[in-house]
């Protein structure tokens, strides 16, 4: 394992994440109308559910302990999908928490039966001839048809209930609308209510539901931040939706989960769940960016950068590449591929393709002085 830098430890170590109390309760699942006709099943299930809820505290404690036991805190796998930091993610991990015990239980029982049969009925030297020729036993067949069916019933109920919650409207009123547009190979985040656009680093305030509208500018991508929750595809020509309410301040790794071409692996993002003061400060800076130094802006224009990139407050209004407003405030560059330092930025400007294979940003053959000027200008945008 390589040495982690201090900043990475701060961002990635789950033990370092600060918990904030929820301002309002998490959503609760309700059956859709056509399934509510099964009130009969609900009544049937009530005593069973009470039973399983009491057990589920035990089960979920075990579930939470399992990764810690396997990995310890902060080293090795972080078990991101099992430690959700949003209500949306928790809906999925709760169903997983039910399923994993059913499947582990079935696994242990069936494999033990297999092992027992193998050991118990191995051929011994003193035996000769054939064993009793049993062709079947119908009662047994019916039993091992009905028992799995019954188990599936217990898996299906939380599944269906949760599907309709996850794909229903965002909980509560007044979600923050954000449009996510996938590009080969970077992310565009539009904040229509706040009136600005940014790229590759998504900032959201803790405790407020976010409603994402997902689409793509080229091929199919998939939005995945494992600790926020499951994926949803970004389909060109149509819109998908995904809501979540972040519950823990921190920085979370995300990346594209649908093969989208050469640099699919390099289409990463960072999601910052900020406390409300930090978010307000960030949003204010994005809405009214400091006036850029005009000599640097001129360099940006004459170097050709403005053909693709926008910087608010300058004549640069290109729409093909990521919006670079306040790019100096970002922690990473090239879709979260490299840290945002002058050295890395200079390297990126020098040979984009060697940093991100297939990158659509052209190699502009900039001389070192020009690169120096651009780096100073861009890093100053904060």
């Amino acid at each position, binding site marked *: 394992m390589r040495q982690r830098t201090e900043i990475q430890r701060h961002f990635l170590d789950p033990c370092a994440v600060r918990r904030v109390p929820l301002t309002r309760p998490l959503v609760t699942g309700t059956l859709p109308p056509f399934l509510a006709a099964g009130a009969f099943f609900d009544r049937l299930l009530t005593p069973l559910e009470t039973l399983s809820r009491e057990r589920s505290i035990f089960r979920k404690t075990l579930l939470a302990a399992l990764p810690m036991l396997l990995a310890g805190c902060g080293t090795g*796998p972080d078990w991101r999908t099992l430690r959700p930091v949003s209500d949306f993610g928790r809906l999925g991990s709760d169903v997983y928490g039910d399923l994993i015990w059913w499947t582990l239980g079935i696994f242990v029982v069936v494999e033990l039966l297999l092992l027992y049969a193998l050991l118990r009925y191995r051929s011994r030297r003193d035996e000769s001839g054939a064993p009793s*020729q049993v062709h079947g036993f119908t009662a047994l067949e019916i039993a091992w048809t009905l028992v799995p069916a019954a188990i599936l019933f217990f898996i299906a109920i939380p599944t269906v209930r949760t599907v309709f919650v996850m794909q229903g409207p965002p909980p509560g009123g007044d979600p923050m609308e954000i449009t996510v547009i996938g590009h080969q190979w970077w992310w565009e985040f539009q904040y229509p209510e706040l009136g600005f656009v940014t790229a590759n680093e998504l900032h959201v305030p803790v405790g407020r539901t976010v409603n994402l509208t997902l689409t793509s500018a080229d091929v199919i991508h*998939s939005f995945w931040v*494992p600790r926020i929750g499951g994926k949803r595809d970004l389909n060109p020509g149509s819109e998908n939706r995904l809501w979540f309410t972040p519950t823990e301040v921190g920085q979370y790794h995300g990346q594209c989960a649908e093969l989208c071409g050469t640099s699919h692996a390099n289409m990463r993002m960072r999601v910052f769940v900020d406390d409300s003061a930090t978010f307000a400060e960030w949003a204010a800076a994005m809405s009214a960016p400091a006036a850029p130094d005009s000599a640097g802006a001129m360099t940006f224009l004459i170097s050709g950068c403005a053909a693709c990139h926008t910087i608010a407050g300058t004549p640069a209004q290109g729409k093909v590449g990521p919006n670079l407003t306040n790019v100096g405030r970002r922690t990473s560059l090239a879709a979260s591929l490299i840290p945002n330092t002058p050295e890395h930025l200079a390297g990126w400007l020098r040979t984009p393709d060697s940093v991100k294979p297939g990158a659509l940003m052209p190699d502009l053959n900039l001389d070192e002085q020009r690169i120096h000027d651009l780096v100073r200008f861009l890093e100053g945008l904060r």
Partner: protein
Amino acid sequence: MSSHATAEAGHESIYAGGLRSWLTTVDHKRIGILYGVTALLYFVVGGVEALIIRLQLASADGMVVGADTFNQLFTMHGTTMIFLVLMPLSAALFNYMIPLMIGARDVAFPRLNAFSFWTFLFGSLLLNLSFFAGHPPDAGWFGYANLTSKQYSPGMGIDFWLLSLQIMGIASIASAVNFTVTILNMRAPGMSLMRTPLFVWMALITQVLMLLAFPAITVAFIFLLFDRFFGTHFYIPTAGGTPILWQHLFWIFGHPEVYILILPSFGVVSEVLPTFSRKPLFGAPFMIFSGILIGFLGFGVWSHHMFATGLGAVADTAFSLGSMLIAIPTGVKVFNWIATLWGGRIRFKTPLYFAVGMVALFIIGGLSGIMHASPPVDIQQTDSYFVVAHLHYVFFGGTIFGLFAGIYYWWPKITGRMIGEGLGKLHFWLMFIGMNLTFFPMHFLGMDGMPRRIYTYAADLGWERWNEVATVGAFVIAVSVLVFFVNAIRSAASGARAVGDPWDAATLEWTMSSPPPEYNFAVVPAVNSARPFWLHKHGPTRDISTHTKEEGTPAQPETPPVRVDLPSPSGWPVLAALGLALMGGGALVGLWLVLIGVAVLVFGVYRWAFQPLERLGHPSFGPASTGGR
């Protein structure tokens, strides 16, 4: 048994003959061997691709291959393993064993059978030619639109991929027709459907699935072909097309394809477990009906591959519940296999090792499959390494282990020689350990958020440890495959001669010498039970369900009492298949080559159609034989 030992020395010559005899053969046994050898060679090719993938991912920021090469490698690995290894390896066992197991002298359409093989071979060569043309396909074996459009994949890789798969699809449909007819019409007198061996049953279901599934992918490919070659917009969103159409068409084929890949293995295990437990298969009718149910339900669950696509809650629910239902017949199969072992006298031979390994590993793949049936869970797991783990437990743990059980089980029958037990068990243990080392940690990686199909990842994500383990495991698998080839070569060179029935088995293929004579059955066997040869050897029983006395079928006489005529060899199916491949290749070279391909195809089919099935000099055996060969 000793009479067989003397008889088979004369039969080893059934594989004699030069290249010409193999090119023009219409014998299902030789075609089976051609399929098997081709598939095992491609198994090495696909395995090497996998090893390079594993080397690249062994550490963070791997530098073994670049992004484009990596995308090409996993595309070719998936396509190779599914279409060039698992399907033809199943086809090898179908070809060789089905006529022998149902008491037939060949398949229904022997020359169509040859055409299927050569079409498959030429198609697979066209696919791999892309390496030499410098542009292998790189959009994944599933080739999602619109990444495969001319705009986003301008190179020839996608064209190679879709044309070769289209050609191989023709081979699959032709062989599906052939084997459906063979199994339904050519069973020995008295072999009712409920007396047909489970392997043949699973083969029949597989053929029906192929017949119904391949047309969907053919349509999908034709749309893609038109988009890429003639400027249509079936999948182009900017022109009003819809990329999601591809996903539906692909998975309407793709999910039944999963059962096309796993059911043959189910069939093998259902033959091997009873033989080595010395008991009949437990609940055989339930095994048959559960297989049919799996095949039927398999057509109604395709969108569980698309839970992240955004189809809406109602569609997700329907496909989720449908997918869960499949767990029931699959569970029935697993329980019946265990019940078959239960109460038996289990002989621990290599085929049994692989069959039990298949059951043990398939359980894991099946259980993770239940998780994928639940959309709230699946949207975290889909397109992550968790799914890579799941599908390899199904296809490697399930299909490969099952097919190796079949290879070891029928090896003496096919080659006439025994294969080493010690090396066989070494092969098993290395493969079993390597397989779990490679694929089990992938569950952890997926749970930790590692997506599939990425050629690189950052060190700070904590994914290195389990990736290292997986890479070590992959090389253990490679060693196990090497052990298998050593074992196979040793057996061919110096293996002990196999008797006709080395395992004391129950079905008809064991009633004849090893390898079987060219005409298979000297006399057409009469069958009146599901275990004809077992009852002959161990005494008749009463069938409790029908209250009829079941009698066995005796071993075959050494020579046919009456003359047996076999269809004559033909080169025209090869020519017709070559014409198809030229048409496919021509699409990448120029119209002139397409037209040559059409001419060759038409000429080949014409000569084939007008060539008499039996002509002077065709092979015949028996008392009135004129000494054909």
